[in-house]
């Protein structure tokens, strides 16, 4: 075949493959916005559900999801990044670290409902935290650790080795090299991992099903040890457990969940842009 024609065909195929990614996203967004936006009112966002979820707002579910997700990410991010720094910058390649790396991969492959049961057993019952924000957040953070560690390690190892050597050759310690040369340059990549994790944690239902979420709580959480309503679980209840819920309320809830994820990710995105701009190579 003529190489020019072959190139054209290849490009067309690659373009189609790319569009296949965009199209479903747009369709999902379109459906949710179209069906749900009529439900979005100030009252919907700031009041309690009424009439067995068939009317009123979703305020407690918003508060619940926010508190679970923010707690989970603030537990998992430092631990995950710390583990990634240790594995990438300090640990040698030996039997132990290979086992650790293998466990991380395996941890990523565990279905989320299994994490839910694990959280129920360890945090809710054994550590006696009860069904609570803390138990749910801990469960989610363990589920998210492999993702954070893997993306953070990728970001760390993409910092050229020569930067480390240049810093070390000045008599700068390994920790200072990590802190002042490696981490700042790896931060955009680490933030990408954080963004993905926030999105995934916010939408997960199974891990919080037994550990944090409640069908209905008539008040807002007062402490980390309270049960809460959560958006994904609330969505599940509205669409399967209760008959005759107005459709726009269900889709409105989905829309709010999407917006919430976007808002939380925005913080990470802004940090990422800031550090990418500062990066000068």
């Amino acid at each position, binding site marked *: 075949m003529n190489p020019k024609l072959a190139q054209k065909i290849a490009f067309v195929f690659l373009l189609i493959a790319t569009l296949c990614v965009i199209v479903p996203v747009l369709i999902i967004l379109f459906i949710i916005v179209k069906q749900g936006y009529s439900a979005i009112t100030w009252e919907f966002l700031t009041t309690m559900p009424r009439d067995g979820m068939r009317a009123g707002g979703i305020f407690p579910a918003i508060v619940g999801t926010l508190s679970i997700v923010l707690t989970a990410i603030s537990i998992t991010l430092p631990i995950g990044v710390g583990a990634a720094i240790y594995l990438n910058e300090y640990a*040698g*390649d030996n039997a132990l670290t290979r086992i650790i790396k293998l466990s991380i991969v395996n941890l990523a492959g565990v279905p989320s409902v299994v994490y839910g049961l694990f959280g129920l057993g360890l945090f809710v019952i054994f550590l006696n935290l009860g069904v609570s924000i803390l138990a749910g957040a801990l469960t989610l953070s363990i589920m998210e650790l492999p993702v954070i560690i893997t993306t953070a390690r990728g970001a760390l190892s993409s910092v050229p080795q*020569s*930067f480390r*050597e*240049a*810093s*070390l*050759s*000045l*008599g*700068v*310690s390994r920790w*200072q090299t990590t802190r*002042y*040369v490696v981490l700042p*340059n790896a931060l955009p990549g680490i933030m990408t991992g954080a963004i993905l994790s926030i999105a995934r944690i916010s939408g997960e239902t199974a891990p919080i099903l037994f550990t944090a979420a409640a069908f209905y709580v008539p008040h807002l959480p007062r402490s980390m040890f309270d049960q809460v309503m959560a958006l994904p679980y609330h969505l599940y209840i509205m669409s399967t457990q209760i008959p005759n819920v107005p459709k726009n309320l269900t889709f409105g809830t989905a829309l709010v969940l999407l917006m919430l994820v976007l808002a939380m990710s925005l913080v990470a995105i802004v940090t990422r842009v800031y550090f990418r701009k500062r*990066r*000068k*190579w």
Partner: protein
Amino acid sequence: MVDKIVATTLNCSYGKVHSIKQLNLTVFQNEILGIIGPANSGKTTFLRTINRLNDMLPGFSATGTLTIDGADIFAMDPEALRRKVGMVFALPLPLPMTVYDNVAYGPRRHGITDKKEIAEIVERALCASSLWEEVKDRLNESAMKLSGGQQQRLCIARTLAVEPDIILYDEPCSGLDPISTAKVEEAMVELKKKYTIVLVTNNVKQASRVSDRTAFFLMGELIEIDQTAKLFVSPKDKRTEDYITGRFG
């Protein structure tokens, strides 16, 4: 002549690869020792053993002794050692920050916080590497925007800013044009007054231009070491002669 760096029956290997064999070599204070030799002759390994950067490589091991001012470097704290022994790499390796921050990086990490003191160190280091005139108005630009030759002199300045005794140059001009090379060499000859310099180079002419003595390495062995003038005019070993006259493989 004061002995600065002394290697005695030094052997280095990476796993099973024996890259330096039974090396006995002395570097005198305030001289430029040029090390020439073909690829895989152990030149760079020797340099990276002196500041113990090789410690980080998996499978690296060294036996024998290597002393600086009489102190065994393998018994020293590597960070303290590297403050005394600066290194300039083959490719210009500025850190991804401004020109100023690059030079200030070492002193800051070593605990100097006084802004005025740092500014003085930066200016002094950039002057010593003959870069000050070219960058004094560009100190807050990214170091990545400098030309290759300027970047390499910036790296020299960054090394000087931590006030080492010894500077190791690892083929510092391999990526530079002749004019930049001349500037780096000029700076090197000037620096000899204060520092001891070991220069590894693939460029035989460079060794003949700047070094006081020259050593010829081949396959991990030191074949010959002598005053540069003598080595280049009347080498004792046939292999040295072949290499410097370009008849070597």
